[in-house]
């Protein structure tokens, strides 16, 4: 243990002093330049009350690690190919099972029309496609009301294709950017959805299906102001085995969930002026799921929004804060509806999560940053839908949770 600590400190000192420099690597392949980039981060989370994000945070947990590595190259002037591998361990989630994060062939016919296919990052709001890349922003954790990290797998990418482009508007009216996509979504079995289901003795073997949607954003004539909207729809199926609470003696029986409706609408705005950045988003997510042909049908309605601001005071120091608000209602029907009681009162801590956050980010050099973040949360939102607080790691919930997140990351 002592040697490990010494080794970690030595690496940190070398990075800081510049004796080890992280540089993007590149090499030639068939006369094309292949770029190699990567990132890694390690976090430590301590909470005063409930355990958070499937970690034993009340004891302090460092089970908060992720990394990615990608390679990309231009195949022709208009065609670019690349792929990225991503892996993470977040408490009980991820568990170091690497995944192909994206693998894309991107052909841009014109600035206003391009096509990309393969496993493509899903454009949804300001940060869905970059939510793993914490070195891009001031905060250690994005507002969980709109970007729940435990459900990252549900929206991060699709196997299919995108049409995209940028259209410069005449009369100096700014630029419109669009993306329309369709494909297959396949959730990790190590995500929050599957983990929460296991609490109810439902063990998924697969969850996914058709996903399609679009995004339209307008870089307005007012310098630094961008507004946009996204919509995503899913036609999902989950296959699992479970123990029926009405007949536990039968042991594991097949379980199938189909979505009657699964959609999200997201609206957002961003304003940047020099070292100041302000953004705000609203997302509404509705999922109507039917289990075993009507044994139980649950309609979940999640609404979340946040407003955030960050300011870079000096080149190496930025401070930020956000307020994030999340509420959930769920209504069930069918013979086994009693096992999922209706939850409609969002004033209850079980049906909401309000989070006030302050963050400081220090860039030790161009490649390495350290963040310290405080969360002051009211509510735990533990319901039929995951939101960071899980009954498996909490014997009982308390209404308020304060959290300290310390995270460091490198990227090249």
């Amino acid at each position: 243990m002592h040697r490990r600590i010494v080794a970690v400190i030595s690496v940190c000192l070398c990075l800081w002093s510049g004796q080890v420099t992280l540089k993007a690597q590149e090499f030639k392949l068939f006369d094309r330049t292949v770029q190699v980039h990567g990132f890694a981060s390690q976090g430590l989370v301590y909470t005063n009350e409930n355990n958070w994000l499937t970690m034993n945070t009340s004891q302090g947990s460092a089970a908060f690690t992720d990394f990615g590595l990608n390679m990309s190259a231009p195949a022709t002037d208009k065609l670019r190919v690349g792929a990225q591998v991503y892996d993470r361990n977040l408490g009980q989630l991820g568990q170091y099972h690497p995944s192909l994060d994206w693998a894309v062939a991107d052909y841009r016919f014109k600035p206003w029309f391009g096509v990309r296919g393969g496993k493509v990052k899903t454009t949804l709001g300001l940060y869905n496609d970059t939510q793993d890349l914490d070195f891009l922003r001031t905060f250690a954790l994005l507002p969980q009301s709109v970007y729940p990290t435990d459900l990252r797998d549900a929206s991060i990418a699709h196997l299919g294709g995108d049409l995209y482009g940028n259209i410069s508007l005449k009369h100096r009216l700014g630029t419109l950017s669009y993306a329309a996509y369709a494909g297959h979504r396949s959730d990790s079995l190590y995500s929050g959805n599957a983990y929460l289901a296991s609490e109810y003795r439902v063990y998924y073997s697969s969850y996914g299906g058709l996903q399609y949607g679009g995004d339209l954003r307008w870089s307005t004539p007012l310098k630094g102001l961008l507004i946009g909207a996204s919509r995503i729809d899913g036609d999902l199926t989950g296959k699992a085995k479970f123990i029926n609470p009405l007949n536990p003696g039968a042991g594991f029986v097949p379980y199938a969930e189909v979505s009657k409706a699964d959609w999200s609408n997201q609206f957002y705005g961003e304003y940047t002026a020099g070292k100041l950045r302000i953004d705000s988003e609203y997302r509404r997510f509705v999922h109507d799921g039917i289990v075993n042909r009507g044994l139980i049908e649950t309609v979940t309605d999640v609404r979340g929004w946040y407003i955030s601001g960050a300011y870079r005071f000096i080149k190496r120091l930025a401070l930020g804060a956000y307020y994030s608000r999340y509420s959930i209602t769920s209504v069930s029907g069918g013979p086994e509806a009693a096992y999922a009681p209706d939850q409609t009162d969002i004033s209850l801590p079980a049906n909401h999560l309000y989070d006030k956050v302050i963050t400081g980010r220090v860039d030790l050099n161009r490649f390495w940053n350290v963040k310290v973040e405080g969360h002051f949360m009211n509510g735990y939102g533990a319901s039929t839908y995951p939101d960071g607080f899980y009954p498996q790691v909490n014997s009982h919930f308390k209404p308020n949770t304060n959290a300290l997140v310390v995270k460091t990351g490198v990227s090249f």
Partner: protein
Amino acid sequence: MKSLRLLSLVAVVIMLGPVCAHAAEVKIIANPSVTANVISAGELKSVFLEEKNSLSDGTHAEPVLKKSGPVHEAFLRQYLGRTDDDLRTYYRALVFTGRGSMPKELSSDAEVIAYVAGKRGAIGYVSSETSTEGVKTLAVADAGNIAERKLIARVDPGYPETLKRLNIGGTVRLQVTIAPKGNVENVQVLGGNPILAEFAISAVKQWVYAAGHSRTSTEVTILFDPRR
């Protein structure tokens, strides 16, 4: 007294420092494969933000960055409206989502020129003082200051009597690049009779415009009327 002078000098140097840094003038350069002589400010921005990988005439284009320095800062401020940190964050978002690459980054003007000279479609920037042999200079047409440069001295083109008698006439359209000092730096034929264009070019090259803050471009049409 001596130390007071020294302090004053230091204070002046400190105060002038930022001014000098801001005063860096930028020249946009391109590989000779880039056919255009003029690029709009919007198009230049789109190329550097990787929203475009070809110019409006279809020529392949790819950006080349300087790593740091006053010229780099001036370019970012003048043409991209972003800080160095913002731009790097922007590129990283592209790189790590599979939507773009990190542009080539070089340290000195000499390295940028050497790279741009050898890389098809490359577009970069160097100090306006730097000699740019082996690459072409692109004028940046800012929609905001096109045609705002006042023509101070105009020289009419020659029109040989022989051509008039043969009834050879018409209009010649030229794209004219005007240096910050006001002299015509480059002329490109956009249309018209090639013989008449020669006369038009030699005249327009002698024109003088009002001085401006940066290199600009404008379109000029010259009429050759054999009946006059």
